[in-house]
């Protein structure tokens, strides 16, 4: 009897350890495959040039248009999300601090919003665009992506703000500052590492999302100069190039995938380092 118990224990611990380590293996595998496959086609032309004539038949050029387009959209959307999201998160933690129920309901609601797939935002952005008589453009893409990342921004920032001790908040109020001052000068400062994480997380989501910009941002070979021009994005560039029957173009899709993965990895590592550094100086 005892023997069986021990064997069962050994077996399941081994099994769960295997599952856990396999996750690390899968991540390494994904990144490795993409780097090996795309490395041959990766060169400075890819990063520094826009597509020339015949690019999609194997001609010269690169995906600079998509890199810049993606950055524009992600930066614009993150800015809008900061403008809407930060006051909302502060409001949730300052004005509503006495109303536990309301706070939890709002959090519950935002969590549910987080799960809405980006294609729905894309379709909604598209119908909005038609409603206002706009064409696929940088602006439409920015607004759609902003809608997508606002719940993420608010919840991530809020998660950090809610751990700030109540005493700090009360001390600030006791010194005679108003709630708004407390929110922006005390809570915001204290929650700054959380703010950085929230911004970088939303930025990463914004730059990597394809389904929402598919309808709204359009696609072009030029770098957009105005808000009403269409903009190419990196995920869509990968997607379109991969659909080509020509091997050189497909190789470039893999190279573009390296660029996108590189950007995402940089953001993710940067978020870790920054939030660690700021939380160290803040922990006094």
């Amino acid at each position, binding site marked *: 009897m005892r023997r069986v118990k021990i064997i069962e224990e050994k077996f399941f*611990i081994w099994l769960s350890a295997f599952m856990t380590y396999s*996750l690390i293996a899968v991540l390494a595998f994904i990144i490795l495959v*993409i780097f090996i496959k795309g490395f041959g086609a990766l060169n400075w032309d890819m990063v520094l040039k826009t597509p020339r004539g015949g690019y999609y038949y194997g001609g010269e050029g690169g995906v600079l248009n998509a890199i810049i387009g993606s950055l524009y959209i992600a930066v614009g959307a993150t800015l809008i999300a900061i403008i809407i999201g930060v006051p909302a998160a*502060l409001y949730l933690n300052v004005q509503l601090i006495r109303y536990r129920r309301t706070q939890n309901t709002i959090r519950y609601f935002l*969590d549910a*919003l987080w*799960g809405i797939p980006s294609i729905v935002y894309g379709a909604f952005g598209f119908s909005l665009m038609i409603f206002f008589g706009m064409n696929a453009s940088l602006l439409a893409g920015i607004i759609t992506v902003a809608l997508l990342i606002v719940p993420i921004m608010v919840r991530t920032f809020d998660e950090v703000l809610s751990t700030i001790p109540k005493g700090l908040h009360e001390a600030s109020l006791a010194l005679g500052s108003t709630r708004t001052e407390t929110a922006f000068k005390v809570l915001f400062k204290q929650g700054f590492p959380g703010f950085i994480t929230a911004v970088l997380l939303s930025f990463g989501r914004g730059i990597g*999302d394809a389904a929402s910009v598919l309808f709204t941002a359009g696609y072009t070979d030029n770098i957009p100069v105005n808000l009403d021009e269409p903009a190419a994005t990196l995920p869509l560039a990968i997607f379109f190039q991969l659909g080509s029957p020509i091997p050189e173009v497909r190789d470039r899709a893999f190279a573009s995938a390296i660029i996108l993965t590189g950007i995402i990895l940089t953001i*993710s590592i940067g978020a870790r380092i920054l939030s660690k550094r700021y939380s160290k100086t803040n922990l006094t």
Partner: protein
Amino acid sequence: MVFSMITILIIPFIIGVGLYLKAAPLFENQSLLKLIFSSSWAPSTGEFGFWPFITGSLYVTLLSFLFTAPVCLFAAIYLTQFSSPGLIRVMHPVIDVLAGLPSVIYGVWGILVIVPFVSDYAAPFFGTTSSGYSVLSGGIVLAVMCIPYTLNMLIEVFNTVPNGLKEASLSLGATMWESVKHVVIRGNYPGIISAYGLGIAKAFGETIAVMMVVGNMVKTSGNPFEAAYPLPALIANNYGEMLSIPMYDAALMFAAFLLFIIILMINLFFRYLIHKTKRQ
């Protein structure tokens, strides 16, 4: 601050209403039931039956769930109960990066690895042939995408188990695994089910990665080695031509509306379960 709070809370309603209004012309000459359960899809003659797309979505999602569920459960148990702090420190970034990789990257990986694997090894192994662009490939890619999401929630759920309960079980002579089985798993049924439910909701709405590997053909056969056409892929693939055929745009918006409602409902339900268990 009030303004931005209100804006955020109003957005989902605007999305729902906007999509509904766009889809409304479709209801004028077809009943809702017929739209959902009919399987004749011929946009040029005005016939929109969503059944093949809904089953396609469900099928891919179900397959991915079969892969995700055991991996997440065991990995979460290992990470919360057995592993060393060092491993947890390594796993956190791994999960974060996996969750943060864009779906296009998963799609590229699926095309490079999973599609050839299915056509060259998996299909011959089961005695059939397949192009590789199939429900099975979609399920595998989706599973990898959903694992970090579900795993994160499971870890959160398991971390709420009070240590005392487990210690009580251990002191009664149970082995570590028995304590885990009876205290951690059994005590957390609602939490585990919610984490799985939310993972399923995410898989259901995933677009680009699935679209790249699933083949996109209107079929209703139950063979996992054949292509299917999930709902999100339908929307993403046809937006270009939808303004040229009458009612097509309404049909696609209806598809988006369906996705929105289904996923919102699943999310609201399971989030409610989680919030409720957290309070206890």
